[in-house]
């Protein structure tokens, strides 16, 4: 039995398709990542699964319960952490936690073991108002509040957006621990580096799932050899790469450009071509692809 089972879900806003025929399953205890740029439809999907909005078409089951018909049952078995911090800023850390525990008919004490690891980071500030916490601490509090009723499925909508790298790393460590406790976690993120931490990921764009697989499989299925290109004049390099015959794709990636080429072009030829264009200190190294490379390729194939 699957924790989440989505079948041909559609949702439009004023004619714009936010979700376009989306189907997927999430197994129990899985850490499932939904990766996609802003506006891909991630939040809409989450809002349907958490019973906040109704789909136009299609069905979605959470723990075998229909999100439309039995929304009230679902509300007590899921935890939802929206992308925007949405706890009561004028209540203290402790009051927020107690409040959410009580509206779910439980107590903080009962499920403290579940949130202990997370909550102990913010416990020293328990009398501080939630609005006065730092970004990372807010996330921890929000996660604690979403967990306090021991949900079966946890929905995290871009939990690490706008959080510093250290807190992000900590946050993912916490998710790993939660996964060990048997909680199914569905997390969305625009950060590709977080994708490899998930059991399975779905690449999402324009309301569609482009591909669903484990991060390893996605990377392994990358069909081309990938090259990282650097030179002394990076700002004109991308244009030069794109105008070079035989280059099939090139895009910026961190401090260099990732490029693929067809059989007509070799590294030597490319180097010569770039030298002619007036580049110096040219470095061309073969690298293993990342999820982001796969995503870029999928987008290209998708015709975007």
């Amino acid at each position, binding site marked *: 039995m699957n924790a989440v089972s989505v079948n041909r879900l559609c949702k439009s806003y004023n004619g714009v398709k936010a979700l376009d025929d989306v189907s997927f399953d999430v197994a129990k205890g899985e850490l499932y990542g939904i990766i996609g740029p802003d506006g891909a439809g991630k939040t809409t999907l989450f809002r349907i699964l*958490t*019973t*906040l*909005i*109704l789909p136009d078409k299609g069905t979605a089951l959470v723990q075998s319960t229909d999100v*439309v018909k039995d*929304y*009230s049952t679902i*509300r*007590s078995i*899921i935890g*939802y952490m*929206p992308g*925007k*911090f*949405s*706890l*009561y*800023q*004028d*209540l203290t850390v402790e*009051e927020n936690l107690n*409040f*959410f525990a*009580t*509206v*779910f*008919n439980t107590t903080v004490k009962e499920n403290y073991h579940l949130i202990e690891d997370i909550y102990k980071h913010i416990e020293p500030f328990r009398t501080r108002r939630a609005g006065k916490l730092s970004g990372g601490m807010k996330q921890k509090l929000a996660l604690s*509040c979403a967990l306090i009723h021991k949900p079966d499925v946890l929905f995290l909508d871009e939990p690490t957006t706008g959080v510093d790298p250290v807190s992000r790393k900590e946050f993912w460590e916490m998710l790993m621990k939660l996964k060990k406790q048997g909680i199914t976690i569905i997390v969305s993120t625009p950060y590709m580096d977080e994708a490899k931490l998930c059991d399975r990921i779905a690449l999402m764009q324009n309301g569609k799932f482009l591909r669903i697989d484990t991060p390893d499989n996605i990377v392994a299925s990358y069909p081309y050899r990938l090259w990282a290109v650097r030179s002394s004049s990076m700002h004109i390099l991308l244009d030069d790469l794109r105008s070079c015959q035989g280059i099939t794709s090139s895009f910026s990636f961190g401090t260099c450009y990732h490029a693929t080429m067809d059989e007509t072009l070799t590294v030597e030829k490319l180097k010569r071509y770039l030298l002619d264009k007036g580049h110096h200190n040219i470095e061309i190294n073969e690298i293993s692809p990342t999820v982001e490379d796969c995503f870029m390729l999928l987008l290209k194939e998708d015709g975007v």
Partner: protein
Amino acid sequence: MIKFLIEKEFKQIFRNSFIPRMIIMMPLMMMLIFPWAANQEVKNIKLSVVDNDRTTMSGNLVRKVSSSGYFILNSVTGSYTDAMKDIDSGSSDIILEIPADFEKQMMDDKHSTVMISANSVNGTKGTLGSSYLASILNDYSAELRSDMMQNLSISAVQEPRSFSIVPEYKFNPRLDYKVFMVPALMVMLLTMITGFLPALNIVSEKEAGTIEQINVTPASRFQFILAKLIPYWCIGFVILTICMGLAVCVYSIIPVGSLLTIYLFAMIYILVVSGMGLVISNYSDTMQQAMFVMFFFVMILLLMSGLFTPVGSMPDWAQYITILNPLKYFIQVMRLVYLKGSGFFQMIPQFLSLCCFALFFNVWAILSYRKSS
């Protein structure tokens, strides 16, 4: 569950640095300042007298007018043109012109005419001023007549038949404007606070996104709405009690009827306005929207409630609109209880109307608050 939701609301209200102060300050301001300012009695009318006669009789007339308390004698001039200049410059509101042969005419013909001309830029001041002045003049002419009767005491002179009107003002014998206004002001205050606060509260939860978090909890929309209503219900009672206390202390206005009736009606009325506020908040996405829509309705409701101008003197179509105005009913009730001492059974129609409004708005509020749109 509902207990915790309410507890949370109270915590938030008292933690807010602004709302508790407003709850105390608004009744104080309204009760201490407004009844004096919103006074429809016209006093201190500036009067210019054009005395063309300059006799004892005209002098007595002027003295009588200026000692009435309503008028301030601005100037006594010899020509109408001078008096008009005072009107133009704003130093005078009304002119009383006494003709040249006033005393002589009164003695010989037993009859004379004076002229009143009032500046009616401010309509109330003009009409009320001239009618005050006219009634003083009538008094004076009656006095003169009785004096003459005594002096002449000749049976040949037929006493003209006349009668005088002595009005008795029921329930407000001294026509004290404050007695009439204070109960209505309480209604206005209750409307402002218990209407605006819940509306803005829900919209602020929308803006902060916290409503999402509540929506994924098992708390039902009925519980959620009720938890928003109850705190403002309590606040409404506190405000009403403060107002009634102030009315007793400052103006010695004590309701003739029973306090129980007032509280009963207030209970329903608060439900009506906060229900209305909730409906508006359910349809607005931002504070600005909610605030503006609320203002729009409260303005209309206040102006069409009979608070300042009697409903009976509105045109027919406007009177039909006031049937849908809950404010009207509660103002009626407050005035009836405060001034006339009406009991509950005399106000059954108002009670039923308010109950309908309460039911209507609150059901609407619960239905329009969609947890899953």
